[in-house]
C-alpha cells in the first residue's frame, strides 16, 4: 500500500481547495428549469415562504393553468431559510417571477428586484395600510391578515386566569404541579423568541419610533419598564414549563392537541394543524398579558412581489396571475377556503373561519390590536442574534430575566450596526 508522493500531495491540494469552493457555492445546487417557457404562452414560477399553503398553492396553480393555459411552476419552499434560498436563486439567475417579501427591511435589500405594482388594478382593493410600500412605490401585496397570542384549551384554561402577570404565573405553577405543560414555545427561531419578543416593543406608544431610538442608542432595553416585565415573564415561563428547545412546531401543536399542553404561543396559522388532529375541545386565543396588554398582535405575515429583473412578458404574466388570484372567483375561493387566509383585501369576503382566525378577524375589525413589531426589526435579527440569546437563557437556569434583556439589547446593537 505505497501511496506515491505526487498522489498524496495532489489529493491534499484538491481536497483542501474544495473546502473553499464548497463554502462559496452555498446551496445553489437545485438550479434547474425556469418556468418552462413555452412558445405559445409565457410561463411563470412562484417561490414563496409559507409552508402551510404549499400544496394548496400548487392546486391553485394547476387550476390557473387549466383556465388560461399559462404554465405555473411552484418551487417547493423550505421555510426557515427562505431568505437565503431566494438570494441564491436571484443571484444565479433562477429567480422566480413571483416571490415573497416579508417586510420593509427585506424589501429595502431587494429593492432592485421589486417591480412597482402601484398602477395595477387589484392593488386598489388592499385593505388600508396593509400594502408593502418602499418609498412611494407599492411593491408587495399582503398574503393575509394574521395574528398570534396565547392559544389555549378552553377546557383547561379560563382567560380570566391569565389576564395579568400574577394570575398568569400562578396558572403556570398550578399546571406544573399537575405535570401538565402550562405554556409551550418551540425551538424554531420565530416560535422561540421572534413572536413573543414583539410584546414589549408593540405595547410602546409608537413601536416604530421606539425601535429607531433603540437603533440610534437613545433608549436602552434594560432601562425600559416593558422589557423588565418581559424578562420576568420569560423567567416564569422557563421555571414552570419543560424546555422549549426539545420541542418542534409539530410536537408543540401536537401536544396541545393531545391535551398535554394547556397553552401554546402560536398564531391562527396553527388552526390547520389542529384541524388535522381533530381536537375534541374548544380552542381560543387570548392576549399575552404584558403590562396589562389585552390585545392580540395582528399583522401581515408576508407579501407577494413580482421580480422586476424578468422580461416584460413574464412580469405581465406574473401580474395577471396575482390579479386572477385576488379578483377571480376561483382565485378568491383558493385564498379563503384552501389557504385558510383571513383576506387582507376589501373585495374578498372572509369565509367560514376556524375559531383562531375568527378571533383574529374580530380583533382586526374592531381595531383592538397591537402591531407586529418584528416586521421592523433589523433584517434577520431573530434567527441570527435573538435565537442564540434565547437558547442560552433556556439552557442556563441561573440566567435572570434581566440578563436576558441585557443580551437582547446587545443582540440588537450587533444586528443594527
Amino acid at each position, binding site marked *: *500500500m505505497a501511496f506515491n508522493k505526487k498522489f498524496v500531495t495532489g489529493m491534499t491540494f484538491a481536497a483542501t481547495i474544495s473546502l473553499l469552493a464548497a463554502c*462559496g457555492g452555498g446551496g445553489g445546487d437545485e438550479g434547474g428549469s425556469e418556468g418552462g417557457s413555452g412558445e405559445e404562452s409565457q410561463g411563470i414560477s412562484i417561490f414563496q415562504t409559507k409552508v402551510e399553503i404549499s400544496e394548496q398553492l400548487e392546486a391553485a396553480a394547476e387550476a390557473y393553468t387549466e383556465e388560461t393555459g399559462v404554465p405555473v411552476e411552484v418551487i417547493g419552499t423550505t421555510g426557515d431559510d427562505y431568505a437565503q434560498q431566494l438570494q441564491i436563486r436571484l443571484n444565479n439567475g433562477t429567480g422566480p417571477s413571483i416571490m415573497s417579501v416579508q417586510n420593509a427591511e427585506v424589501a429595502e435589500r431587494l429593492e432592485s*428586484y421589486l417591480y412597482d405594482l402601484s398602477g395595477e388594478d387589484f392593488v386598489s382593493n388592499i385593505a388600508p395600510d396593509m400594502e408593502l410600500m418602499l418609498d412611494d412605490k407599492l411593491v408587495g401585496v399582503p398574503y393575509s391578515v394574521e395574528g398570534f397570542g396565547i392559544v389555549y384549551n378552553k377546557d383547561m384554561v379560563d382567560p380570566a386566569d391569565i389576564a395579568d402577570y400574577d394570575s398568569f404565573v400562578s396558572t403556570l405553577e398550578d399546571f406544573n404541579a399537575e405535570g401538565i405543560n402550562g405554556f409551550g414555545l418551540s425551538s424554531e427561531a420565530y416560535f422561540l423568541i421572534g413572536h413573543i419578543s414583539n410584546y414589549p416593543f408593540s405595547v410602546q406608544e409608537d413601536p416604530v419610533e421606539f425601535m429607531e431610538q433603540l437603533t440610534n442608542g437613545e433608549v436602552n432595553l434594560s432601562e425600559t419598564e416593558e422589557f423588565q416585565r418581559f424578562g420576568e415573564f420569560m423567567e416564569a415561563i422557563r421555571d414552570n414549563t419543560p424546555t422549549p428547545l426539545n420541542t418542534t412546531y409539530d410536537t408543540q401543536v401536537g401536544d396541545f392537541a393531545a391535551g398535554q399542553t394547556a397553552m401554546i404561543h402560536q398564531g391562527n396559522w396553527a388552526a390547520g394543524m389542529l384541524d388535522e388532529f381533530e381536537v375534541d375541545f374548544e380552542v381560543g386565543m387570548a392576549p399575552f398579558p404584558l403590562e396589562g396588554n389585552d390585545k392580540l398582535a395582528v399583522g401581515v405575515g408576508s407579501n407577494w412581489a413580482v421580480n422586476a429583473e424578468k422580461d416584460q412578458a413574464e412580469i405581465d404574466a406574473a401580474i395577471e396571475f396575482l390579479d386572477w388570484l385576488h379578483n377571480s372567483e376561483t382565485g378568491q375561493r383558493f385564498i379563503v377556503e384552501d389557504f385558510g387566509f383571513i383576506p387582507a383585501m376589501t373585495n374578498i369576503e372572509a369565509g367560514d373561519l376556524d375559531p383562531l382566525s375568527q378571533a383574529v378577524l374580530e380583533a382586526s375589525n374592531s381595531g383592538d390590536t397591537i402591531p407586529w413589531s418584528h416586521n421592523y426589526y433589523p433584517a434577520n435579527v431573530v434567527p441570527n442574534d435573538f435565537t442564540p440569546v434565547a437558547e442560552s437563557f433556556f439552557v442556563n437556569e441561573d440566567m435572570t430575566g434581566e440578563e436576558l434583556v441585557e443580551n437582547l439589547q446587545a443582540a440588537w446593537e450587533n444586528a443594527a450596526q
Partner: protein
Amino acid sequence: MKVGMSVANRKKVGWYLIFTVPLLLIFTLIVLVPFVIGIYYAFFQWDGIGANPMVFNGLDNFVRLMDDTRFLRSAWLTVLFTVLSVITVNAAGLAFALLVTSKLKLANLARTMLFMPYLIGGLILGYIWQFVFLDVFTLLGDATGLDSIFFNWLNNEDFALFALVFVFTWQMAGYVMIVYIAGIQGIPGEVIEAARIDGASGWQRFLRITVPLLMPAFTISLFLTLSYGFKIYDVNLSLTGGGPANATELFAMNIYNEIFGYGNYGYGQAKAIVFFVIIAAITLTQVYITKKREVEM
C-alpha cells in the same frame, strides 16, 4: 511531445485524455473558478445581492477578522472538535480494523455493519441522533438514575460539542477502518510469524511490526479525518444547528451564517480564505510529518 511518436504511444495519450480531460474540466469549473472568484470577493464589502453595489475595501475584511469574537470562538471550537474527532475516529477505526481482520467468525458481517453509518450520510445521521439524545438518553437517565450522564446533551453548551464528536466518530470510524484494513492486509504474514517465533508478545508485535508498517495508512486516515473534521457542516447542521447559543457553531457554519444570515458576502469570503489557509497549512504539515515516518519494506 516527441516528434515521430509511435502509433501505440499516441493511442495511449488519447486514452489518457479521454479519461482526464472531462474530470479536469469539471474540477476547474466547479472548484478552481469559484475559488478564484471567492478570493476576489474577499476584498469587497457586498451583501451578496447581484444588483447591489460592491464596494472595494482592501484588507479591511481581514483586519476585522482579528477581533471578531464570534469567529474566534468558532475557530477554537472547530480546533477542539477536530482534535477530539481525529483521536476518537482513528482509535475506533483502528480498533475495528484489528477486530475484523482477526480470526473472528462474524468478521465479514461486522465489517459491513461498521461501515454502514458512513453510507447513511451526515444529514440523516444527525437527525437520527437528535432523536437518540432527546428521547433515548432522557429515557435511559430516568430508568437508570444516571441522569448526570444520560440527559439531552444537545441542550448543554458544554456537552453539545461532545455529542457532535460522538456522532462524527460514529459516522467516520467505519470509513477509516477500511483504510486500516487495507493496510493490515498488506503486511506480509511471514514478518509477523518471524516475530512470533522470536518470542515477541502480541502487544510487541502490534507496536513494533504492525504500527510502523501501517504508517502509510495513518498518513491517509489522519489526513482524511483532519480535513473532514475541519470542514464538517452536515452533521453540525442537522444535529445541533450550531446551538445551543452558538456553542457548536463550527467554521463552515460560521461562514455560512455570515454570508447568508448577516448578508456580509465579502467578509464571509475573507473568513473562507483564512479557513482555507489554516486547513491547508495544518493538513500539509501532518502529511509531511507522517510521510517521514513511513518505512519501506
